[in-house]
């Protein structure tokens, strides 16, 4: 779960890191009020779950409440890389004497935690790593042992913090690591981590990803989950317990069981010249009701010019899947072809149910490749 900047900063504050004073605004009016309270100079920052907002006009420095209102008004209409700006963060301006980069993330290769530090703050760290690898300090932290003092010293050296602010920076590093562990984060990034003109060490931006699997330990953090808006397809999916739903850009609706199989189906659709409209994994042991809901969800969206249902029955019974498909076709008006491929447990029974339904839009097929071809063909 990726957090918005202001949510990440809420966690920073809770774990003892300094952040600028700020307020979230959902309207231009709220933005001007915030600017009045925090100004004169404030930053107005679009809250979106995607990087690169700066270049897209998502961050502005303004000098009075009227300007804040105007800037917020423009920003709240923006869509940055497909992400509509629904709120902005208005923050008090701070004097900066140095900028560093600091992050902690799960390193899958070593199965440990990795702290990355650099004195090149405020820049794209991947570019820095490419151009100036020696400007990046990497420190692996053993998950059982935790962060040690000698490692904090290495990180401080990497951050290039002036001597007078070393103690404050050490506290920031330790607090960020505590947050990372205690909040079950998979990434915490501060870019830039600044030293203010008063010598304080402060997080000017935040990027935090939390482990979805650990939310049971942090019920108070479930509120950070993306709110995709009332009536959205994601909301409908979540309501039906179809949590592994992902909206994509194409025109072939995809339903399958098992993450690998669904990914493989998406790839096949691509190989035969189509594009998937979504990723939808109904999981293991899906019954007729689940299938019916899933199919209706894809059909209701209206973007799909065809639907591909690809089921390999293990625990899942293909006869129940077929019943679900037929149920959905009876429940809503269907104007696009629904290509269904069933294999594994009770596949014969399932295919019989499909053929007996004799629905004009229903296209039973024998193999994955054939399914992909038929589904893509239908979109042309």
């Amino acid at each position, binding site marked *: 779960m990726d957090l918005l900047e202001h949510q990440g900063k809420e966690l920073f504050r809770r774990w003892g890191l300094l952040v600028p004073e700020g307020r979230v605004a959902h309207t231009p009016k709220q933005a001007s009020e915030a600017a009045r309270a925090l100004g004169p100079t404030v930053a107005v920052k679009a809250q979106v779950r*995607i990087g690169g907002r700066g270049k897209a006009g998502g961050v502005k420095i303004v000098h009075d409440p009227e300007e804040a209102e105007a800037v917020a008004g423009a920003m709240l209409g923006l869509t940055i890389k497909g992400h509509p700006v629904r709120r902005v963060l208005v923050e008090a301006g701070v004097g900066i004497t140095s900028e560093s980069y600091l992050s902690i993330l*799960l390193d*899958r*290769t070593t*199965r*440990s*935690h990795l702290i990355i530090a650099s004195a090149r703050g405020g820049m794209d760290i*991947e570019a820095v790593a490419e151009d100036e690898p020696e400007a990046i300090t990497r420190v692996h932290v*053993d*998950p*059982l042992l935790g962060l040690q003092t000698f490692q904090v010293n290495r990180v401080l050296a990497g951050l290039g913090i002036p001597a007078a602010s070393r103690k404050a920076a050490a506290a920031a590093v330790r607090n960020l690591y505590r947050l990372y*562990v205690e909040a*079950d984060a*998979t990434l915490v990034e501060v870019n830039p981590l600044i030293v203010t003109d008063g010598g304080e060490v402060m997080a000017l931006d935040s990027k935090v990803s939390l*482990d*979805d*699997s*650990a939310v*049971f*330990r942090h019920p108070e953090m479930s509120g950070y989950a993306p709110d995709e808006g009332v009536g959205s397809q994601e909301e409908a999916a979540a309501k039906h317990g179809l949590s*592994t739903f*992902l909206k*994509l850009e194409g025109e072939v609706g995809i339903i*399958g*069981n*098992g*993450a*690998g*199989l*669904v*990914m*493989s189906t*998406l*790839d*096949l*659709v*691509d*190989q035969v010249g189509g*594009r*998937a409209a979504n*990723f939808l*994994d109904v999981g*293991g042991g899906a019954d007729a009701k689940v299938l019916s809901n899933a199919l209706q969800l894809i059909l209701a969206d209206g973007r799909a010019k065809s639907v591909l249902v690809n089921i*390999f*029955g*293990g*625990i899942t019974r293909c006869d129940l899947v077929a019943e679900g498909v037929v149920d959905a076709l009876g429940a809503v008006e269907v104007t696009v072809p629904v290509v269904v491929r069933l*294999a*594994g*447990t009770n596949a014969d029974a399932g295919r019989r149910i499909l053929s007996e339904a004799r629905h004009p839009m229903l296209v039973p097929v024998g*193999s*994955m*490749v054939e399914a992909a071809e038929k589904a893509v063909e239908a979109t042309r």
Partner: protein
Amino acid sequence: MAIFVDHNTRVLVQGLTGEQGRFHAARMKEYGTHVVAGVTPGKGGRQVDGTPVFDSVEDAISATDANVSLIFVPAPFASDAILEAAAAGIPLIICVTEGVPVHDMARIFTHLDSVRMHSTLIGPNCPGIISPGKSNVGIIPGSVAGPGRVGLVSRSGTLTYQIMDELTSMGIGQSTTVGIGGDPIVGTGFIDCLDRFEDDPETDIVVLIGEIGGEDEERAARFIADEMTKPVVAYIAGFTAPPGKRMGHAGAIVSGSRGTAAAKMQALEEAGVRVGRNPSEVAGLVAALSAN
């Protein structure tokens, strides 16, 4: 031989009294797997479909000589179940449970890495292991498997069943299929499985089924190039996955420019691995090799 599980496998099921545990234990027994015990704290002394339940793994091992533990307990309790099995010294632990927090797995992985620990962990979030005709430990449907000389190792479930099914229906059986799981950190990766297949006299060809995320496939490619003599066929899922989106599995996510299917395929091909573009092509490549 086969790898990990065979005729001598004696399974205890942690969470046998739960709905999932009971259902799959029954299927496993139907397949012929020796399911000898269940463990649910506080429910020792009961039976589930004739299988005795114990309060602890230690008790279950003492009473039944179980040598594999299969874990179905819910995610919040799965870490404790793994650690209990490991503390009891059981050689193989297979965790089916999905949704184990990744920080827990980082700690468990480090712990199991100690020279004092003697357990191999498969999973979590994995379908288990089947050595067709010998033992089926997990949730892989026995119907898609047939005994033979192809070893499979995979990060996914149904996709693997699909490939097994295509192989079996072409008359190509399997020595063992290992589902290593789809989480960012799993107990056992590709390399350890490839190594075992390389050493297994009953395996001639190995199929590796990977997906986006991490760089385990890239590391596997290096291992194949450096250490393996047996032919390897591979498949990678997720060529069309957009960066930053989690494709179902917690581990299936392209981060920036890292973990892409294209990079993985390239690494494998450079290691001399034949990579199929879809499950049927994979089966075809294996069939061609089998025919030689």
